[in-house]
């Protein structure tokens, strides 16, 4: 039996009876894609695909003010509200100073897919946005040509004006806007895109991020800042253990707190609950403080449910035992078992990466107003369109009766792809008959997260007499995100295994990947770069471990393992099922070892790899392809006699195909080093009795400025439009932690195999 799961991370999958994803469903996208795109992407296969109607995305008023619709979520990459709009503006030949950005509501029927995750915004939308801009440019030219009574080939658009090439006469965009925008959208074959040498904004990195001025003046409006007349404020006491339920509660003390108005029970949903609220008891009050005081005064008896015994230390032991036994074979080249048995030397290592929490600076929050059968929601959402559908379903109303106002996200990193908080707000507004803002405290946000998975990765590598790697067996054990959507499959999905496990690019004749069983005991969700974190950590640390065993330079070892320039196609390997390639066609985005090696060489060269360093300093290198982008990172560390770790320098090389906004790529890579440091150094959510043991930034530490990498240099491999743009938001993260740990080993000889580093360096 097959079931199509809609809205799984807004991707669309067919799930087999066992719950494993067996195929991504590709839906054909006609006209634009077939006639115009230089290369195919998976954009059309996303729910609601791509909309390229210029009337949906661009309006121009009589004064020439161009308004461009941003339909995706802006969470700090700049992609949604700066980069995609500047692509439209460039093709439109608009003067950026006369462009305004307007955020669309959640509505995928109208705007196409709005799910902002998977590092897809520029990758999937650079070509559609170019097409939209070029279409409007043509419409303006047609209107001006009609005005002058000349052929459209006799006019050209230049910097917000149409020029009559014969007479030299000029007419501003505003003067022909009404006529131009009344024209139907030109067919795809009529539209001519610019050539790269004609770009004014694309690829330049000169445009200031759109919201920057408002941000530094405190005027930017984030989801948590929503203001609706008459709104109440709510906090929710949620079951402390995933799968738990409220048995009884006493709100007598709560109701005495000044400002508290009402206590409302929110029902939980049994697993698999997708993005449904955890349930619990909500306190609605006149302000946030009163609601928080009221919640503190609640007396609740919980039934902790089946995960009450979840203990992450015990679970780790269990996962390690699993990783020491054969698992399901998920890729099999040659005969790794035989090659390991006959190897001259076998290097074995086991790596552990705990759960982590997103801890985006803006805790999740939503404001809702339900009245007269209609719902309005204001929130920071990575998937505003998907949220609208979820809200309609939950409240039993039509999507047309749900308006989702998308506000800025104070960080997302995957957490805000899951709209449980918006559903809570909607249910509460319906219950109290007034607009309600739900606030999650930091403790709520950290303890009731959709946590990054926990994982044990075990790799055995066999070397021959000459020190060449002839066998590689990688066993990965980690609870799956898919436990959110289907009864716990207990195995990584094709998506997760496609993130650095089965897509291993190494030139090793006997290569075997296995996946052991692991049950999800909490909500597992996707965190920036997802399974690439554990898989990339294990693989890239292992390379340095092999280099050490073989007495080789780690960078040389890495280059040797990458091997000659070629395309690695995991679909040709035995036992690889449903290799997903991040949902994009392999033909557009193959695994190209020349590009992989290219970033390694670039990072090594720019970081002065091989040149002497002071005592107790060391360099480490790691490379990883994720979200179709190749990133190599060299981290330089110093570890003093007492084990104090500092990071004086990070050098990152990025090959992301054609880069539309290098300035924001730079900032993403700088940030990825900081987030990579946080997860390597501190990142751990541990569980005892089913309860998350960390709650706020005092116990769940993240990188601060005084320990942050002092200097992160970013080098981008230049490409023309012939090399498709790939992901940027996530790919900087995976190589950082292994490069850091490899550097630590080089500096002081201590090999870190278990994250976080914590106090493992203290002597």
């Amino acid at each position: 039996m097959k079931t199509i799961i809609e809205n799984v991370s807004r991707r669309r999958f067919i799930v087999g009876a066992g719950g494993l994803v067996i195929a991504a469903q590709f839906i054909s996208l006609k006209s634009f894609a077939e006639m115009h795109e230089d290369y195919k992407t998976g954009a059309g296969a996303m729910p609601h695909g791509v909309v390229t109607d210029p009337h949906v995305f661009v309006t121009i008023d009589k004064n020439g003010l161009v308004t461009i619709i941003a339909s995706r979520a802006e969470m700090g990459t700049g992609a949604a509200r700066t980069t995609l709009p500047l692509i439209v503006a460039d093709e439109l030949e608009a003067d950026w100073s006369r462009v305004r950005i307007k955020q669309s509501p959640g509505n995928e029927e109208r705007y196409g897919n709005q799910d902002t995750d998977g590092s897809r915004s520029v990758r999937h939308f650079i070509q559609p946005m170019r097409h939209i801009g070029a279409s409007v440019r043509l419409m303006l030219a047609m209107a001006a040509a009609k005005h002058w009574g000349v052929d459209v080939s006799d006019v050209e658009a230049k910097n917000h004006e149409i020029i009559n090439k014969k007479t030299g006469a000029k007419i501003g965009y505003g003067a022909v806007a009404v006529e131009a925008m009344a024209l139907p959208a030109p067919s795809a074959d009529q539209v001519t895109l610019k050539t790269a040498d004609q770009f004014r904004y694309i690829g330049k990195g000169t445009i200031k991020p759109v919201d920057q001025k408002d941000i530094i003046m405190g005027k930017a409006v984030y989801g948590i800042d929503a203001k609706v007349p008459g709104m109440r404020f709510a906090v929710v006491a949620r079951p402390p253990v995933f799968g738990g339920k409220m048995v009884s509660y006493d709100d007598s003390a709560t109701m005495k707190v000044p400002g508290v108005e009402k206590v409302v029970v929110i029902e939980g949903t049994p697993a698999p609950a997708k993005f449904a609220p955890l349930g619990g008891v909500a306190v609605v009050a006149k302000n946030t403080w009163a609601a928080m005081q009221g919640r503190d005064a609640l007396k609740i008896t919980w039934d902790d449910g089946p995960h009450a015994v979840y203990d992450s230390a015990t679970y780790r032991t269990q996962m390690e035992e699993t990783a020491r036994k054969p698992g399901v074979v998920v890729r099999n080249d040659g005969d790794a078992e035989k090659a390991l048995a006959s190897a001259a030397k076998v290097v074995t290592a086991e790596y552990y990466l705990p759960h982590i929490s997103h801890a985006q600076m803006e805790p999740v929050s939503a404001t809702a107003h339900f009245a007269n059968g209609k719902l309005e929601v204001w929130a920071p959402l990575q998937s505003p369109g998907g949220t609208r559908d979820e809200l309609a379903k939950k409240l039993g109303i039509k999507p047309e009766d749900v308006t989702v106002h998308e506000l800025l996200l104070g960080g997302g990193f995957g957490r805000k792809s899951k709209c449980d908080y918006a559903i809570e707000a909607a249910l509460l507004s319906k219950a109290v008959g007034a607009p309600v803002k739900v606030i999650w405290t930091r403790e709520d946000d950290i303890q009731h997260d959709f946590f990054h998975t926990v994982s044990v990765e075990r790799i055995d590598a066999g070397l021959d007499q000459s020190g060449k790697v002839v066998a590689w067996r990688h066993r990965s054990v980690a609870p799956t995100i898919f436990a959110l959507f289907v009864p716990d499959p207990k195995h990584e999905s094709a998506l997760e295994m496609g993130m650095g496990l089965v897509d291993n690019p190494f030139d090793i004749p006997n290569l075997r990947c296995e996946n052991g069983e692991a049950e999800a005991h909490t909500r597992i969700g996707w965190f920036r770069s997802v399974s690439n974190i554990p898989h990339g950590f294990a693989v890239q640390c292992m390379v340095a471990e092999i280099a050490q065993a073989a007495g080789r330079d780690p960078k040389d070892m890495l280059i040797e393992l990458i091997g000659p320039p070629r395309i690695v196609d995991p679909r040709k390997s035995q036992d690889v099922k449903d290799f997903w390639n991040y949902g994009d066609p392999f033909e557009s985005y193959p695994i190209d070892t020349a590009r992989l090696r290219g970033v390694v060489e670039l990072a090594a060269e720019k970081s002065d790899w091989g040149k002497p360093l002071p005592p107790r300093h060391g360099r480490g290198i790691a490379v990883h392809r994720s979200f179709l982008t190749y990133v190599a990172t060299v981290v330089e560390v110093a570890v003093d006699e007492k084990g104090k770790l500092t990071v004086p320098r990070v050098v990152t090389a990025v090959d992301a195909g054609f880069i539309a906004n290098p300035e924001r790529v730079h900032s993403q890579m700088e940030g990825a080093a900081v987030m990579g440091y946080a997860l390597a150094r501190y990142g751990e959510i541990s569980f005892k009795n089913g309860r998350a043991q960390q709650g706020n930034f005092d116990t769940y530490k993240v990188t601060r400025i005084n320990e942050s990498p002092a200097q992160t240099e970013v080098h981008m491999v230049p490409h023309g439009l012939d090399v498709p743009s790939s992901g940027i938001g996530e790919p900087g993260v995976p190589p950082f932690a292994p490069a850091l740990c490899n550097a630590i080993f080089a500096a002081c000889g201590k090999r870190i195999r278990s994250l976080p580093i914590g106090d493992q360096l203290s002597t």
Partner: protein
Amino acid sequence: MNVTVNGRQHAFDGDPSMPLLWYLRDELGLTGTKFGCGIAECGACTVHVDGEAVRACATPMSGVADRKVTTIEGLSPDGSHPVQKAWHALNVPQCGFCQAGQIMQAAAMLAANKNPSEAEINQTMAGNICRCGCYQRISAAIKSAITGA
């Protein structure tokens, strides 16, 4: 009690233990000051009280009676404070959520010490978390604000 916020005096007769943060956000609608942790660990809510940087989430209303509070909305009328200008020039923010707190902290530091050393900058700014990881640019922007470059 009375409290002056961005030059305007307000009367307050609510719970004196309520943190200034929620008064600013929920009662005055000044949402430029952000909630990040509630326990003075992240600095997102940093405001000035009589010119000094404090965490609004851990400052009860009773602590600001008859004092002058400046929020990000009151730092300058048009974003022209040297720190804001440096932030804009170097494109510091990513998501931007922590930046009001960062800017208020940096502005208070420079008001008290016109030429802080690198170590002083790191020490003073260590209370302000940026999860997107803008630290390199924060550091550069502060140095730029110092020199006026």
